[in-house]
């Protein structure tokens, strides 16, 4: 009897532990879903246009500028909102960008750009950050919608067809040419009138060749020398 009792007690404990284990596992599972779902929901709430323009820095400056562009209003009614261009779609890069964006919260509190004058004073710096980010990722957010591999050059105008093909062959990316398509540009030096203290052309139109690898650079130099030599000879002959 004693042995039987002991055995039944052990079995009972084992059963209870098993049940508790299963229960705990279930609770963790459900809690995981709730927490993860909640986290993602909050993250997605911060990924909407309403959230972006809930601070007047964005609403009064860049949002008003964007409302005049094709990404806001167009014939087919497809709209790219703030996060479509400014927040990466895939999870890892999205999280990194969201953590970086905490810096923007800090500057919201500091009031770094809380008047149009302050914003315009910083416009070049802010724009350069976005240009650099786009350049670094080969304009990843543009390519969420626009894939140059799907271009039908016969449908494009003669200018865009030519520029797209030469530009992409040179290894350029969207942002190299398409700056200021959604927001007002900072002042840019364009060789008209006196100096307006704007961004120099080297920043606004970075030369794809200048950024190429050293090997291609030396090749280009060699080519340039080869081209220069006949002229030199001709000049000497004259």
């Amino acid at each position, binding site marked *: 009897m004693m042995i039987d009792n002991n055995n039944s007690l052990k079995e009972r404990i084992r059963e209870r532990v098993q049940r508790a284990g299963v229960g705990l596992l279930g609770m963790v599972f459900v809690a995981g879903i709730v927490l993860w779902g909640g986290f993602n929901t909050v993250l997605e709430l911060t990924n909407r246009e309403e959230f972006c323009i809930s601070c007047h820095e964005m609403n009064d400056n860049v949002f008003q500028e964007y409302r005049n562009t094709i990404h806001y209003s167009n014939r087919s009614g497809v709209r790219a909102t703030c996060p479509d261009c400014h927040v990466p779609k895939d999870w890892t890069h999205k999280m990194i960008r969201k953590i970086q964006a905490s810096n923007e919260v800090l500057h919201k509190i500091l009031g770094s750009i809380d008047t149009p004058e302050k914003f315009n004073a910083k416009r070049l710096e802010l724009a350069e950050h976005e240009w650099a980010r786009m350049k670094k990722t080969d304009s990843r957010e543009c390519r969420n919608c626009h894939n140059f591999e799907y271009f039908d050059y016969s449908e494009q105008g003669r200018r865009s067809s030519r520029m797209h093909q030469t530009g992409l062959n040179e290894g350029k990316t969207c942002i190299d040419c398409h700056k200021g398509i959604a927001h007002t540009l900072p002042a840019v030096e*364009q060789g008209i009138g006196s100096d307006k203290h704007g961004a120099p052309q080297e920043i606004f139109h970075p030369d794809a060749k200048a950024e190429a690898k050293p090997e291609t650079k030396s090749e280009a130099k060699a080519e340039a020398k080869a081209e220069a030599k006949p002229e030199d000879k001709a000049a000497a002959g004259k």
Partner: protein
Amino acid sequence: MKNPIRSTRPLLAVLLALSLGSSALSPLAMAADTAAPTKLQSLRGAEVPAMDPEGEGTRNEKDRAPIPRNYLQQPPLIPHSTKGYNITKNFNKCLDCHSWTRYKETGATKVSITHFKNRDGQEMANISPRRYFCVQCHVPQSDAKPLVNNTFQRAQGLDK
């Protein structure tokens, strides 16, 4: 109380008509009468102070090759759509392709050398600021029909 006023109205009207009729006999008043009925309106049929109605089928023309001049000194026409191209204090979209530093890469027609002169005829190192607003003279084309028939012909010397 209202009835007496109403009854005087026809009388007033008759008096007014008589006075108008008598004044119409004088030559000065006759001139004023002939000028009055002319209703001023724009060529597109809108009232003068009102905005012109949106024309039908006036779409910006698509890209094409440079358009030859029609008369001497004609500012070359813009052979492409300029939709979304802004000229602001900060940035001139036209010069982003047509300036001398950019035209080779973009394949655009470069700004005329005459644009480097200031109003006193002095040559400058940069484009003169008085040339900043390109579309004051250079205009994009649309398929709008001419509002008035005309007999304009290209300058003979420019014919191919």
